[in-house]
């Protein structure tokens, strides 16, 4: 029976591995699901907002270590909040300066935000240097949790998982249970009508975009627990993230969750058998094939057009 428990341990750890990929993907996709899914804005600089969050965490960790080392175990919670607000504020600015002028030209938004992402990447490089940096992690997040001798689960994975759950639940509540969410959904479905019933659609747009960017910032903060941060860290994930949102069916939060889960598990299972790059190729190709058969994605809301 020895091999069975070994097999079980591998399955658990492999499953957990898939789950942490899922959480990272979902955290990234959440912000985009709001911006792209709800607003229909293609923000190619989304990855850079993630990097903003990661660098914020790095700066705060260095500052804490330098000035108040005693606070070191707790700084991370503060860093998450700060990442949210800094990335959100930046998003607010970007919406005001760029996006709001391009709502009627979706393809041009794509190009302009790509330009923005180039500028932001170079700004990171000028400020923080081209080398990757890592935030100093508090003790409690390091190490792993071993329920049995064969199973070994890293704590940072658990932490990211908890954070993802919290973020998803919050966004779900905000979008579907709050007055603000109602306004957002109304604006996205019928802008003219929403304006007619007294919703300030411009303000809603700006807040929605800022929120999406803020969530990307939180994802960036969570990222620092897993890997180091470089100027182009965010851009590496932008394609996966877009595919996740499109695959799930834009405008459907449940769809985004489901597609992130499918893509992450498929990739981590295939990675076990094949090389990492081939697993990625196969996963992405499968997603594109399915999208060709079902362009509206996994879950779609029926809207009369």
């Amino acid at each position, binding site marked *: 029976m020895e091999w069975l428990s070994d097999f079980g341990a591998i399955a658990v750890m492999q499953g957990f591995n898939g789950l942490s990929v899922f959480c990272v993907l979902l955290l990234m996709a959440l912000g985009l699901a709001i911006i792209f899914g709800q607003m*229909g804005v*293609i923000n190619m600089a989304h990855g850079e907002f993630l990097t903003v969050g990661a660098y914020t965490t790095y700066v705060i960790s260095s500052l804490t270590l330098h000035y108040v080392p005693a606070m070191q175990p707790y700084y991370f919670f503060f860093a998450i909040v700060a990442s949210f607000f800094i990335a959100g504020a930046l998003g607010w600015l970007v919406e005001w300066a*760029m996006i709001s*002028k*391009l*709502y*009627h*030209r*979706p*393809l*041009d938004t*794509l*190009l*302009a935000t*790509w*330009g*923005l*992402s*180039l*500028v*932001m*990447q*170079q*700004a990171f*490089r*000028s400020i923080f240097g081209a080398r990757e940096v890592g935030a100093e992690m508090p003790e409690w997040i390091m190490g792993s949790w071993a329920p049995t001798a064969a199973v070994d689960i890293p704590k940072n994975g658990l932490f990211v998982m908890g954070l993802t759950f919290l973020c998803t639940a919050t966004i779900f509540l905000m979008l579907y249970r709050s007055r603000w969410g109602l306004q957002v959904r109304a604006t996205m479905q*019928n*802008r*003219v*009508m929403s304006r007619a019933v007294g919703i300030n659609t411009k303000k809603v747009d700006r807040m929605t975009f800022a929120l999406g960017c803020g969530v990307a910032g939180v994802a960036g903060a969570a990222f620092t627990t897993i890997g180091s941060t470089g100027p182009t860290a965010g851009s590496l994930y932008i*394609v996966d993230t*877009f*595919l996740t949102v*499109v695959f799930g069916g834009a405008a459907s939060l449940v769809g985004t969750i489901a597609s992130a889960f499918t893509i992450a598990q498929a990739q981590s299972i295939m990675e076990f058998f094949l*090389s990492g*790059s*081939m697993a*990625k*190729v196969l996963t*992405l*190709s499968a*997603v*594109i094939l399915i*999208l*060709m058969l079902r*362009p509206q994605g996994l879950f779609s809301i029926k809207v009369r*057009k």
Partner: protein
Amino acid sequence: MKNAYESLLGGKQGAIGLLVLATLILVVFPLLLDTFRLNMVGKYLTYAFVAVGLVLCWGYGGILSLGQGIFFGVGGYCMAMFLKLEASDPESTKIQSTPGIPDFMDWNQITELPMMWQPFHSFSFALLAVIAVPTLLALIIGVAMFKRRVGDVYFSIVTQAIAAILTILIIGQQGLTGGVNGITDLKTLLGWDIRPDSSKVILYFVNAFLLLGCVLLGRFILTSKLGRLLMAMRDKEERVRFSGYDVASFKIFVFCVAAAFSAIGGAMFALQVGFMSPSFVGIVPSIEMVIFAAVGGRMSLLGAVYGTLLVSFGKTYFSESFPELWLYLMGGLFIVVVMYFPNGIAGLWETHGRKWLSRYSLGKKLFGVPEVKARVFTAKPVEKAAPRELETTP
């Protein structure tokens, strides 16, 4: 001949514009630049093929493909595979453990030429493949996407993802494709050495003529009824569909043409520069090529060529002298052009340059606004009227 003059050259204005460009490429550059710089311009001009294709499918067809690098790359790889096979004859590769196969295969412990490479021994097959493979690829992507009425934004994302996949695939399959380094050390074309300066000059002219040919072909397409249909589709797709046209087929056609143009560019790139690598396939080069078209003017075939030359010169100059500044400039340029000058250089020329030149009598004679405008070439890209707002107004 009147008809050909109108449709190929686009009337007097079009003919003069083309003549200016041809003089610049065929006379001014070869006279002014040394061979090294000329070869560099030749390299830029291979990107211009892609930009010209993008004017067709993005500017006029409204299809923004973020994966033109796929076709540029596949075309380039087809050419490079033939050249590599010629360069690795058993004689010159006899130090390898398996002579007669490309060196990178030998490094990857491959002992036999893979099936995929076999037909590339033949030059005619390689030439055919340069055009046929990318066009076929575009056809498959196009049929799958447009027949199912996938929206323009989704199309951009999917093409981008395909470019990413192809890059990962090429890098991953090192034994088959040469991996990150790509296919290097290309030497001869049917026994003719492509490396010395004299060959480079000849290749430059071949490339320039091919490019001008593509521009002419593009003009022919745009001045035909098809061109007008493309614009109609871009502006009000539903109306064209309701008028009884098969919208998808036109989109697929123009996408395939753009792919074929890019592939020619890729093949000429491999010939002129002497290598092909995955760094010309992925997302970043693909979007850079969109910048070329955007800066030059998405509605102008000639503008796309100028845009390519200008941005590429800028890139080389700034990344040599001020590497820090380059990305700021490039990003800023992109934002400014897209937001404030959606017609690019060609648009500025139409609104300001032509008027300015018309003050002088010679300028007026050559560039003055003709009474009957060649409408196809001066049309503004009609901004998509906010679809949501229109749909929902009662």
